[in-house]
């Protein structure tokens, strides 16, 4: 290898940082032995580095460390509250209300997404069943037989009767003749 003294100056920096390969180190040593300029450069770089053996510093106080732990404790308490809501599917509701619902963020957390999916499905199913059962109960034929039949049986029986013409279809109820 053939370097100028300026290039060797950089190589000296890397050598003092223990970043040279064995071959590079051998080449540097061979050059320094015969080059007074690089010998001076090496001495100056070593001198500069010695100054940093006692670098500028500040003291870490126990008071500061305690304040950091206290701040983390506050975060911890707030985090527990969020977690409580998440496990009950409350976070989705909260996010929608606050207008910060993020579908991709939700999908990125499968556990939370599953919890919310179960909650939403259960809610939708409840509403669906509630509306349907309320509709069935208002029909006089069904309401009359309600005491002796399960909702499912009643619904099936209603459909069978309706298909056979025993019960008028919806339009006929309003206009039976």
């Amino acid at each position: 290898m053939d370097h100028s003294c300026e290039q060797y100056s950089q190589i000296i920096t890397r050598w003092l940082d223990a970043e040279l390969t064995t071959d590079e180190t051998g080449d540097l040593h061979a050059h320094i032995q015969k080059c007074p300029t690089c010998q001076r450069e090496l001495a100056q770089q070593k001198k500069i580095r010695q100054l940093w053996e006692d670098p500028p510093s500040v003291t870490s106080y126990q008071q500061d460390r305690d304040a950091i732990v206290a701040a983390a404790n506050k975060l911890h308490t707030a985090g527990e509250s969020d977690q409580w809501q998440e496990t009950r599917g409350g976070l989705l509701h909260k996010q929608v209300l606050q207008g910060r619902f993020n579908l991709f963020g939700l999908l990125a957390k499968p556990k939370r997404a599953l919890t919310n999916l179960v909650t939403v499905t259960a809610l939708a199913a409840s509403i669906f069943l509630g509306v349907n059962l309320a509709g069935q109960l208002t029909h006089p034929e069904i309401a009359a037989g309600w005491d002796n039949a399960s909702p499912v049986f009643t619904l099936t029986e209603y459909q069978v009767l309706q298909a056979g013409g025993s019960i008028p279809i919806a339009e006929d109820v309003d206009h039976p003749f």
Partner: protein
Amino acid sequence: MRLIGEGEMPAFGQLVQRHHSLILNFAYRLSGDEEMARDIAQDCLLRVYRAAAGYKPQGRFRCYLFAIVRNLFRELIRKQKRRRETPLYPTNSASNEVSRADSRSNDVPTPAMELASKRLRDHLQKALSTLSPEHRTAFVLSEIEHLSYRDIAMICQCPEGTIASRKHQAIVQLRQFLTSEGI
């Protein structure tokens, strides 16, 4: 970190005890301002706390901490540039240290030690402030924290060759400055 992620506050307390000084001093050497360094150290440790649950070990933990401090420092510089304030350069913190020493009696170095090295340390901090943030970061991590170029490259997210070049340029600039100051 796993314990902290599970909400074990004593584990976080231990982490703070162990690493606060390291983080604080790195932040101080980057910013040259003691109060700012304390703020950065606090922000850094709280970020570590928040990120603990999702932490995946990649390299040395010290490097992870240094990367957070570096990012916080860069954010501060960007904010200051946007506000067109005076650059982040050292306020002489010696008077702060003395007033703090009165109020916080623990961990305070003796006056004799302070006097012996104060002048040199002031010059060194002033010399550091003449470097650009990138050169300062490379120099401090290499020369004071004794990290390899590879680790520094990971922290600074740039090639190792860039770090080698920054380190050398920093040495050259520091030498010029300190020579002009008669050191």
